[in-house]
C-alpha cells in the first residue's frame, strides 16, 4: 500500500518537475509547480505514514527507508526555501533530485531490518534519524544549486547565451544559496552525529567504535566543516560549487557503498548486538 502511494507521489514529483522546467521564469507556471510539489510532498508523507503503520517504524532502518525519508526532507526543505528565495528555477533541479533519490525504491518493498524494541524507544535515535535525513537533504539541495551554478557559470563565462542562460538565476544568488545550504546542512548534520553518538552509547555501549559508518560520517562532517571554513577564507564561485557537489557525491557513495557490502557496518543493522560481535 505505502509503495503504491509512493509511486503516486513520484508521479506528482514528475508533474512538478515538468512545470518547473517548462517555464521556470513564468510566474503562474512556478506557482503551479509549487502546488504540484506540495501535493507530491503530501502524498509522500501519507506514504511514509502508511509505511509506519505497516512495519511500525522499522522501515527507517533500511537504506530504502533512509532514502525515502531523505527525499521527503529535500522536498520539504525546498518548499521552505522557495518561500524565502524566489528562485523557481531551483525547483527544476531539486525535483529531479528527489526523484533520483526515490527512483530505486519505487520498484519493490525491500526487506526490513530486525530492531529490538528497546532500541526503537530511544528518543535520541528518532531525532538522530530525522536530523541525519534533514542534513543530507540540505546537502542534496546544495548539490542541485551548485550544479546550477556550474552550468550557469559556463554559459556566462563562455558567452553562450542559450536556453540555460535565460532560465537560470544569477550566479550571485546561486552562490549565496549554496553557501547557506552548506552551512545549515553542516549544523544539522553535526546535531545528527552527536545524537548518533548518544544512541551508540546507549545501544552499542560505546559512543565511538570505529564503525565504518561512523568513520565515513566523520569524514563527511569534516569535509563540510572545511567547506564552511573555506567560505570565510573567501572561497566562492565555481570552485566552491564543485566542492559542494563532491561533498554530496561523497555522501551518496558512502551510504550506498556501506550497504552494498554486507556486514561492513552494523549501523541500521541489528541494534541489539554490540559492534564487537560482528555481522548483521
Amino acid at each position, binding site marked *: 500500500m505505502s509503495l503504491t502511494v509512493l509511486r503516486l507521489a513520484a508521479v506528482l514529483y514528475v508533474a512538478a518537475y515538468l512545470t518547473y522546467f517548462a517555464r521556470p521564469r513564468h510566474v503562474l507556471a512556478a506557482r503551479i509547480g509549487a502546488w504540484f510539489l506540495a501535493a507530491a510532498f503530501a502524498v509522500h508523507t501519507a506514504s511514509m505514514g502508511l509505511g509506519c503503520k505497516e512495519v511500525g517504524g522499522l522501515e527507517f532502518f533500511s537504506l530504502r527507508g533512509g532514502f525515502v525519508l531523505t527525499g521527503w526532507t529535500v522536498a520539504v526543505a525546498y518548499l521552505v526555501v522557495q518561500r524565502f528565495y524566489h528562485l523557481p528555477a531551483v525547483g527544476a533541479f531539486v525535483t529531479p533530485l528527489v526523484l533520483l533519490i526515490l527512483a530505486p525504491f519505487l520498484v519493490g518493498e525491500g526487506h526490513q531490518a530486525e530492531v529490538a524494541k528497546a532500541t526503537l524507544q530511544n528518543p535520541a535515535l528518532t531525532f538522530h534519524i530525522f536530523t541525519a535525513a534533514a542534513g543530507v537533504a540540505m546537502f542534496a539541495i546544495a548539490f542541485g544549486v551548485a550544479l546550477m551554478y556550474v552550468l550557469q557559470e559556463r554559459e556566462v*563565462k563562455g*558567452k553562450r*547565451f542559450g536556453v540555460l542562460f*535565460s532560465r537560470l*538565476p*544569477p*550566479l550571485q544568488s546561486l552562490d549565496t544559496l549554496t553557501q547557506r545550504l552548506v552551512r545549515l546542512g553542516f549544523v544539522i548534520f553535526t546535531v545528527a552525529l552527536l545524537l548518533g553518538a548518544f544512541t551508540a552509547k546507549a545501544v552499542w555501549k560505546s559512543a565511538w567504535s570505529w564503525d565504518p559508518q561512523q568513520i565515513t560520517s566523520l569524514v563527511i562532517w569534516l569535509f563540510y566543516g572545511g567547506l564552511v571554513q573555506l567560505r570565510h577564507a*573567501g572561497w566562492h564561485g*565555481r570552485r566552491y560549487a564543485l566542492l559542494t557537489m563532491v561533498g554530496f557525491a561523497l555522501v551518496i557513495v558512502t551510504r550506498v557503498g556501506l550497504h552494498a557490502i554486507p556486514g561492513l557496518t552494523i549501523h541500521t543493522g541489528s541494534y541489539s548486538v554490540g559492534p564487537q560481535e560482528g555481522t548483521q
Partner: protein
Amino acid sequence: MSRSRLFLVGLSHKSAPIDVRERVALTGDALKDALAQLKGMDGVTEAFVVSTCNRVEVFIQAEGEAAARHFFTSRAEQAEEHLYAKQGPEAVRHLFRVASSLDSMVVGEQQILGQVKEAYGLASAAQAAGGFMSRLCNRAFATAKRVRTETGIGRGATSMSQVAVDLVEKIFGDLAGRAILLVGAGKMGALSAKALRVLGADTILVTNRSEERGRQLASQVEGTFRPWGELSQLLVEADVVIVSTGAPSFVITADMMRTAMKARRHRNICLIDLAVPRNVDPTCADLGDVYGYDVDDMEKVVSANHEARRGEAVRAEAIVESEVVAFTQEREARAALPVLATLRQRAEKIARAEAERTLASVGGKLDQKGRRSVEAMAQAIVNKLLHGPTARLKEAAASGDTALPGAAAALFGLDEQDQPARSGRGREGNGAARAAASSENAQ
C-alpha cells in the same frame, strides 16, 4: 442613408522623416484640443489619435477620411506625401499590429502598448472616443497581451546597453552595494552606465584621461570623478567596469587585472569593453572570477535576439489576423440589432398608415374611443407578429450569428430601401448599438 466607417490616416517612422513627424506630433492639452476639433468636424462621430515620437495616426469613425487628412495637412503641408490611409478591417488590423508592437522600429518593444493605452485614455477623456473606439481599443489591448504572452516577441535584449544590463544581472543579480566604473568618455559607455542604474548600483565612478571631459561625464551620469592615475585602485573597488576610450591599445592589461583580482580577494568582476579597437586585453576574461565581454560578444546577442524576434513576429501576425477576424465578426453580429430596429420601424409605419386609411374611410362613424381602438389594434398586431422575430434576432446578436439578420433583412425586403447599413462592416455604431440604430433611423 450615410455609411459611417473606420478610417485611419497616419504617418510613421517607416513613411516619414523625423522633421515631418515632429511637426504633426501632439501631446497633452494640444492633443486634447485637436481631438475636440476632429470630433467637431462634419460627419466625424468618434476620433482617436496615437501620437508618439515614431508615429502619428488618426483613427476616425466617419463617412470619409477627409477630416483625418486635414489633421495632418493643416499642421504641415509636406505631410501629405508621407501619409498612408486605411479603412475598415485594414485599419483595424493596423491598430492591432501597432499595439502589439509589430510595426515598431524595434519589433516587440514594450512602450508602444502603454502609449496606445494613454492615447485612448486621452481620447476617452476628451469625449472624442465613444462606444466603438472603446471596443476597438480594448480588443487591440487584448490582442497585444495575447501576442506578448503567447509569443516570445518581447524576449531578449535588442540594444547593446540592454544586453549589458542582462549580462550584469546574470552575474550579480542586482547591484545593491556595488560600484560601476566608467573608463573613458565614450557615448556607448555613458548609455550603458545609465541603463545599469535599474539594477540599483550604489555608486558610479568615472575616470578619464582628460579630467575636464571626465567631470562633465560624471555629472551627466550622476557619478564621482576619479583621476586617471587611480585606475588600478578603481579596478579593486568597482564590480562592473565599462570601458570606452578612444585609446588605440589596451587600457586594462592582463597583468593589471591579475593584481587587481588578488587585491579584490577574487570577488567577481565584469569587464565590458565597448571600444573599437579594444581597450581590454581579451586574455583578462580567462582569469578566474573575471567575466569579460567585448563589442562583438554583445553584438552577437543583439543580432541573435533580433533574429528570434523576427521568427516570433510570424506567429504574432497570425494572432493579430485571428483577432481582426473575430472583431469584424462581432461587429457584424451587432448589425443584427439595426436590422431589428428597421424591421420594427417599417412595421409600425405600415400599421400607422393602414390605421389612418381605415379611419379615413370609416372614421366618421366612430367616436374618439373607437378611433383609438383601431390604432391600438394595429399596434397590437405589429407587436404580436414581431415578438418572435425580435427575440430570435436578439439572441443571434448575442451569440454572434450573422446569418440570421441577413436572412431577416432579405425576407422582409429590408435591403431595398431605408436600411441603415446592414453590411455590418460599414456600420460602426456610436454607444449602445440599439440607441445608435434608432437615432440613425430617425434621421
